[in-house]
């Protein structure tokens, strides 16, 4: 299940890049995210609570940065599970930046999410819709944090 979003932020590319690397601030943009624990420079532990209708899932996720090209691209893989509901989530995310101008950066983010187990069975179309909404909320939070901060 592919989720893609392209948007621009009124901020220089350096500022956006630094924000992306700062785990705590990035986590604050992810809806339902309950804090981040930094294991090492490239790996973080976080947990995300989401709700699809009557069903609430609580994923404990290990996020690892797999590739970094400063000021250009960052690749991460998130792997986690909600043992309560025997479901697991696997997300391969890619964020690429390109600076439109001194004060304008274009961000393209793409993530390939697959959810296994019972939640996955619930209805792929619905989860795609929910994931898209989460994506949009993430973008809004990211924009406002960076532009204000």
């Amino acid at each position: 299940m592919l989720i893609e979003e392209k948007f621009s932020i009124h901020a220089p590319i350096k500022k956006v890049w630094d924000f992306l690397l700062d785990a705590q601030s990035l986590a604050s943009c992810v809806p339902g995210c309950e804090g981040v624990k930094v294991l090492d420079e490239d790996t973080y532990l976080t947990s995300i609570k989401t709700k699809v209708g009557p069903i609430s899932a609580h994923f404990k996720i290990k996020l690892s940065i797999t590739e970094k090209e400063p000021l250009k691209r960052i690749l991460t893989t998130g792997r986690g599970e909600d043992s309560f509901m025997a479901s697991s989530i696997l997300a391969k995310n890619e964020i690429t930046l390109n600076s439109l101008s001194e004060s304008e950066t274009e961000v393209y983010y793409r993530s390939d999410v697959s959810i296994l187990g019972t939640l996955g069975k619930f209805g792929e179309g619905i989860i795609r819709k929910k994931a898209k909404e989460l994506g949009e909320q993430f973008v809004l939070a990211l924009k406002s944090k960076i532009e204000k901060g």
Partner: protein
Amino acid sequence: MKYFEYIEPKDLAEASQILNEYPEAKILAGGASLVVLIKNNLIQPSHLVNIKTIPGLDQLRWDSKEGLKIGPLNRHRDIFESPLIRQHCPILSEAASKISSPPIRNMGTIGGNICHGEPAADFPPALIALGAKLRLFSTKGERIVAVEEFFVDFYETILSKTEILSEIIIPPLPSRIGGTYIKLDKTNNSIAIVGVAALIGVDEKGNCNYVGVGLGGVAPTPLKVKNAGEILLGKKVEEDLIEKVAKEAQLIANPITNIYASDRYRKEMVYVLTKRALKEAFSKALMI
């Protein structure tokens, strides 16, 4: 399935009170949808409140002023076979006959079908076309809402934690009225890819005096084609007006892509089916 407490309340008040006390409690009516969710570990209720022990929730009464009053525990089978429904709103009986299969129709209830919140469920489009209202009971009081306002998102309704759907009210309709529920499904009576319910009423001069169009399976919730009235009421029912309403239905549709069909296909089909449903409804109205 994992263990849960099982309660047989004697009245709605007790049921609502239990919902208030236990946040993870769920209402058990027919169980056709709920038990599947539990078995799949999608929800783990702490309590099941079996409202089938509450008397009076499966009644079906006609009142010339207020219209048809349907208890939420009427099973799909009861709705399909009820002479009152066949007389006053046959479109509901038609919708009931297209739900799943006889065993499910002998278990599932109209209340459960509505409260489950499945966007492609078969009753909501027909209820929307009928302009139905829902009575929601809770210990904090009762409220009545139009059926199209009842749905919030996928499997999410406006029911508060302690509210229970206690009655479905279908206001009286003009005498010369025709309706149909068209369901596009993969195999017979499987989940609707697109569902359209349409009702058209005509007065003696042949002008449209009632129109109701409900859509299923094309958005996170069932939809009402709100300005169908503007387009048709008071006018002669013509082909181009019907196409305008169908265009309107296509406009408000916001479907998903899933294993059954893509969003593009659903968007195209909601136009085709709305046009067909309105035409068929109109020809039925003329026959009365």
